């Protein structure tokens, strides 16, 4: 789905996130359900900007949630103590 290597390269802030936020931090719009569709369509070669426009992410607060996010949950889950 999403190339892990590319994700790591973009993680320059050192910030680790688990899974995409359910709602936009600023305006409160529910956005998590768009994450998988965005990446499925980007994998097909569609432009990120155009997909975001068509998904209804009009405000830059919601778009920023997706631009800055990296799914780390699968990596973190491997170290879960049971």
């Amino acid at each position, binding site marked *: 789905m999403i190339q892990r290597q590319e994700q790591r390269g973009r993680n320059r802030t050192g910030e680790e996130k688990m899974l995409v936020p*359910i709602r936009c931090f600023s305006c409160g*719009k*529910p956005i998590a359900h768009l*994450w998988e569709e965005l990446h499925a369509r980007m994998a097909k070669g569609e432009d990120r900007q155009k997909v975001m426009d068509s998904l209804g992410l009009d405000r830059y607060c919601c778009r920023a949630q997706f631009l800055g996010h990296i799914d780390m*949950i699968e990596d*973190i*889950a491997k170290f879960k103590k049971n």
Partner: protein
Amino acid sequence: MTGQSKKVERGEGEYKMAEVKSLKQDKLRGIFLFENTDHTYLNTLRRIITNRVPVMAIDEVKFMENGSAMYDEQIALRLGLVSLTTDLESYFVRDKCKCKGEGCARCTLDLTLNKAGPCTVYASDLKSKDPAVKPMFPNTPITKLLEGQTLKFEAKAILGTGKVHAKFVPGLMFYTSVPKFKVKDAKEAKKLVEESNKVLESDGKKLALSDYSKTDFALSLVEDHPDAVEVEMSSTDYVVTIESWGQLSVKELMSRAIEVLDEELDELEAEIKDLK
């Protein structure tokens, strides 16, 4: 609502009834033109929509098993933020319910989830006891489970208001006043219209917006051509955008907000009558 004006006996000037026109309506968003109103009324409506209109959200989660990488609290927070379609006719706010806040079928809804990995747990996996109340966006990922990990919990959803927690916020409203353009320099104005990509329209003498939702864009263009037109922002006409986060429809959101305002004014009236 009618556009007829009527004289008010006391007070100054003429009083006009507000007029509302729908400019654009999607499933979860409506753009309206409010005429003959003012920003204090619209701001009241905006604050009531974000803070006072009750909607359903998960409030309590009892975990039986959580093998996922996320802490219980983290999952509970994510569950709370999932927007649930709300049926305001069949549920009561807990404080106003007959059970006096204990929790009964009139004010509380039980949801359960039981999943074993490897999988992604989606909001659609939540099993609701009431078919009318279910996640609005079923593809919302809640957590991911690896091989051998399980997630099992019981959750309770209640009605609440945005005043209490952001998860109960039903939507967003914002507005701008309608700009009116006076042409100062016809040549410059023509340039402006050409650059505006059909957002601004001109019939030779007058300039007008063709799409009210692009007011910001038009104003920024006008700033680049200071000699072309004079802009006057209307103090009575507003373009209002109301977005719903899925729990209620835009229309229901507006009518509920007005109901809440009415209730609060009635309360105030009763208080004033009791004054001596």
